[in-house]
Every structure is written in structure tokens, then in C-alpha cells.
């Protein structure tokens, strides 16, 4: 999930604080060693449900109307370019995690992809790399920890940020500091661009959110299950081991 967050801009103290936060959060991920298939993946369910409801209310009040208006007003090619731009900004994170996972070859291809899209693709507005055969990959620090062997750890619903786990949460600051936008100091640039990034990320979820509203008997459980499964899918790059329901006893 390569979401673009509004950046924490500013020099000195704030960056030191962020570094400390990163260090703490990475060490907490050491606790995320719950083995796969363990029964209770959601020991914080009560708190999580609370944040889930809060996020939903906040989304309905603020994010959804803005995202809907954005989708209605902005022509599709423009929205596609905006999405490409933010995907490209977030691609350094993918490259970093390619190498951290030992996927050196993929790391080199992804570097070429980033360079191509940033130059020929005009600062990422146009995804020329895919047209040239360099496909887009999805890697983040949470997946890296998964590849290194960390279990997901307890499921978390973070205020405003949404579904996560004890293992995946440390990936959020990593995503933030690998974005070039993080290092721009003028608020006049970072605030509008960051804001647009949030709108773009939310607009991409419009179909998914509608699907959940239509399909789910219990949106909280539905979201949790879909999120956890999606993470396994991403960690195994599309080829997860298949749990067999039918090993259970049938009379």
C-alpha cells in the first residue's frame, strides 16, 4: 500500500524526533513474531473497532466528499497522471525494499523504471516505463519484514491511516522518509502537493469502499480479513501458500 502521507516537514528537531520514532517502531516490530495461522490475530478488536468507526465517520464527513468531487470534476487522463506522479514519488520506497529483500535484479529494473518515468515521463506524470516492458512492483517495509520472517503480529486499525498490523506499521514512517517530498522545505509546495496526494489515494479507494458497503455483513471483519490476506499475497508476490479448508473433518 503505497499511500502518500502529508509530509512532516521541517528541519532539525522534528527530523531527530522522527528518527527516534522510527527506531522505536522498528524495534517493536520484533514483537511481531506471531506464527501464521494462529487463532487470535485481533486481540485489540475492541479498540480497533472504535478506531474503525471513527475513521469511517471522519471519512464520510471529510475525505469522501472531497474525493467524490475530485473524481467528478477531474478528467480521467488527468487523474491518471496525478496517480502516476504519486506512484513515482513513492517508488524509491519500492526500490529500497527490493534490495532489502534481496531482490537485486528487481531492484535494478525498478531503478530504471524510476529514472525513465522521472525523466522521459516528465517527473512521473507519464508511465512510460510500463509501455517499455518495465512492470510496476509493490514492495514496502512491512513486506520486507514479512519476507525476513516476521509474522504479521496483531491487527491494528490506526486512526486516519486505517488497517495495519504490528509488523506493517513501522513501514509507514519508512514510506514517508523515502519520498522526495519529505525533503522539500517550503510549505507552499509540500502542503498542496501532500494534500493532493491524500485526495488521490482516497479517490483510488472509491470502488473498494463501495464494494465493502455493498458486500460486507460486517465491514470491520471484512476489511480486516481482506487486508490481512492482501498482505500475504503481496509478501509472496502473488503466489501465497494456500490454506486448505477441507482438511478439516467432514462427517
Amino acid at each position, binding site marked *: 500500500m503505497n499511500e502518500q502521507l502529508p509530509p512532516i516537514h521541517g528541519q532539525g528537531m522534528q527530523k531527530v524526533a522522527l528518527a527516534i520514532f522510527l527506531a522505536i517502531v522498528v524495534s517493536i516490530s520484533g514483537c511481531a513474531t506471531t506464527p501464521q495461522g494462529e487463532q487470535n490475530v485481533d486481540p485489540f478488536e475492541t479498540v480497533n473497532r472504535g478506531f474503525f468507526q471513527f475513521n469511517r465517520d471522519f471519512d464520510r464527513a471529510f475525505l469522501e466528499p472531497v474525493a467524490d468531487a475530485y473524481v467528478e470534476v477531474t478528467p480521467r487522463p488527468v487523474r491518471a497522471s496525478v496517480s502516476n506522479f504519486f506512484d513515482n514519488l513513492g517508488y524509491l520506497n519500492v526500490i529500497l525494499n527490493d534490495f532489502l529483500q534481496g531482490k537485486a535484479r528487481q531492484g535494478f529494473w525498478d531503478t530504471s523504471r524510476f529514472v525513465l518515468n522521472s525523466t522521459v515521463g516528465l517527473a512521473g506524470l507519464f508511465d512510460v516505463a510500463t509501455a517499455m516492458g518495465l512492470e510496476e512492483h509493490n514492495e514496502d517495509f512491512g513486506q520486507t519484514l514479512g519476507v525476513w520472517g516476521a509474522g504479521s503480529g496483531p491487527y491494528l486499525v490506526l486512526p486516519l491511516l486505517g488497517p495495519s498490523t504490528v509488523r506493517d506499521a513501522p513501514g509507514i514512517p519508512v514510506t514517508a522518509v523515502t519520498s522526495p517530498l519529505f525533503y522539500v522545505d517550503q510549505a507552499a509546495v509540500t502542503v498542496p502537493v501532500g494534500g493532493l496526494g491524500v485526495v488521490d489515494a482516497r479517490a483510488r479507494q472509491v470502488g473498494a469502499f463501495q464494494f465493502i458497503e*455493498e*458486500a*460486507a*455483513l*460486517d465491514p470491520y*471483519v*471484512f476489511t*480486516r*480479513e*481482506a487486508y490481512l*490476506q*492482501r498482505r*500475504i*499475497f*503481496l509478501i509472496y508476490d*502473488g503466489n*501465497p501458500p*494456500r*490454506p*486448505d*479448508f*477441507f482438511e*478439516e473433518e*467432514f462427517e
Partner: protein
Amino acid sequence: MFRSRIVFMVLALVILPATSVAQQDGPIAVVEHFQDILIEVMKNARQWDYEGRYERLAPVVRQTHDLPIIARVAVGRYWGQFTEEQKKLLVDTFSELSIATYAFRFDSYSDQTFKTRSEERLNNDQAVVQTLFVESDGDTRRFDYMLRRTDEDWRIVNIIVDGVSDLALKRAEYTSILRREGFDSLITRLEEKIAQYSQQDSS
């Protein structure tokens, strides 16, 4: 409205026997037959409306999916605690909801197609068929079907879309509702969903 009903019913009598699946069809044939019907329903979605789509899909879904087994797995360890009546009610309601979901969701057509990619036999009685759902703009989604053979028939028991297992999703939801609210509440929720689909014909 009345006239299109007659036309539809005549068509159904003519088409249905010709396209039912033969007993010995393998997993890919079962999946492709089902997907052909889905595409057909999508193409005719406007004329048929929700009820027409439901009627067209009902026999095909029942034939190509093993709905009783899916319902059973979806309630996990609670199945053994139900009475015979409850089991029957659950399977009936769940089956209706499964068909209703397809009828609701496949309600428009814009040149989508399915492409079969591979079949894998896990053992004598289980198989996975990998397919792609291709949108008109080239975007693809992975639809993987898990099938299980009972007697001679291969039937779908799970669909995994882009890595998300529908059966696992249902199991998480249903067992959560059973744990927190009980059997009657689950049935009520299923019935509410069916009603929601039949009334809210998304246009």
C-alpha cells in the same frame, strides 16, 4: 415488461438444455461454462433487470458451485452445533444470497472477458483454475477458482480475487457474527443482504 418475460422464458427453455455441463467435465470446463454465463448475463443486464439475471443465474450457480459445502465451511466449527433445521435454513439462505450477489454485481457490460491461464490438480479431488478478468482498458484482475470433486462432478468451492479468498472472508464474517450475536442474527443479516440486493438495482 410482460412481453419480455415471455420472450425470456422461451429463450431460457431453448438455451438452457444446450448449455448445461456434462457430468464428466473437468475443472476448466466447469469454470469456463460459468464464466460464459456471467458474460451473457452482463451483456443482457439492462433488458433482464435484477430478477431476470437472478433466474438465469440460479440453476447455473447451483450446478457449478457446491453451495452446501461452502456454507458449511463458512460457519466453521459452529456447523456441528446446529440442528438439522438450522443447517437446512442456513444452506438455503446462503445459496439464495450467493446467487443474489452474482445477479446484483454483474449488472453491466463494457467489453470485459475472462481468460483461462492454467489448471493445477492438487490431488485426486481438488483443483485450482487460474483465470484473468480483463477490463476494456486492459486492466486485469486475477480470479482463481478452487474446485472439489464429489462423485463425478467438479464444483467450485472458493473464488480468490487478487489474492483475497472469498471463502475466508465469509468465514471470518460469519464466525464473528455467530460468536457475538448467534445463529438467528446471522440468518437475519443474510436475509437483509438479499433484500438489499434485490431492491437496490444499481443502475
